[in-house]
């Protein structure tokens, strides 16, 4: 099983993607999709990305929900900043020290922070885990640090273990 399907989640994702793109469940396209899924899994295995196991599906769902809510809030916040032009608004750089080291988990964190309009990921120092961010509406640096640690880093540490 390990040899045939080295990355089962990736292969399943590729198959679902293929079926969605073809918008069918006919055996022909499904067979081609299965082949694409198998080849994709092998190709990734050749790249040796390292194995990280995903745990706690409940935490994954809760994280996804949290991100959906935070991105709505951030959309409204950034739209307000652009449309209302508050004179006292301050943007700036913040640094957050992370304990997260798993490359896949860091990639997910980067996607979350970039998808959130109010924050932009700039640089990560892998040695000591310092993350440099730019924040559009910097009210309180400690507040942002708390959001990143509690909302995203803690669940990611539980999921990628």
């Amino acid at each position, binding site marked *: 099983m390990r040899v045939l399907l080295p990355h089962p989640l990736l292969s399943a994702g590729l198959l679902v*993607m293929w079926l*969605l*793109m073809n*918008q069918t469940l006919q055996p022909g396209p499904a067979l081609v999709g299965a082949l694409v899924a198998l080849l994709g899994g092998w190709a990734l295995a050749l790249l040796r990305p390292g194995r990280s196991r995903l745990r706690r599906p409940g935490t994954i769902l809760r994280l996804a929900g949290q991100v959906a809510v935070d*991105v*709505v809030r951030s*959309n409204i916040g*950034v*739209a307000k*900043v*652009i*449309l209302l*032009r508050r004179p006292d608004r301050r*943007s700036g*750089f913040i*640094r957050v020290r992370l304990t997260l080291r798993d490359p896949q988990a860091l990639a997910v964190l*980067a*996607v979350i922070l*970039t*998808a*959130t*309009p*109010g*924050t*932009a*990921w*700039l*640089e*990560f*120092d892998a*040695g*000591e885990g*310092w*993350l*440099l961010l*730019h924040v*559009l509406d910097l009210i309180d640096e400690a507040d942002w640090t708390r959001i990143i640690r509690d909302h995203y880093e803690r669940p990611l540490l539980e999921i990628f273990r």
Partner: protein
Amino acid sequence: MSHAAELPIWLAVPAALLLLLGAGLALTGALGLLRLRTFYERLHAPTIGTSYGMGCVLLASVLVFSARQGRPVLHEVLIGLFVVVTTPVTLMLLGRAALHRDRLEGDPEVPGAARPDDAPPA
């Protein structure tokens, strides 16, 4: 759209509202590119369009085409997924390029490294 009249009203109204909301959000993001002052601030603006701006338009598309074809049309989900996964690549590249340029020019506003200077040694 010549088939718009065939849609039932209870579906046409939410779809139209979602389209307007999505387009409005994308427009706000574009406006941000004009209004915000520094490069780093402008990095934030287009993300409105690539998050819920895109999400609302795609949801409207799912509603309309599912109703017209009489079956769930879901491949818009893939567009959303690929946009969300690929945007960070561009934005991080742009952000880091700007950071590199500003550090070379010795801009005092820009932090020198991700690790703070006063951090205790590891």
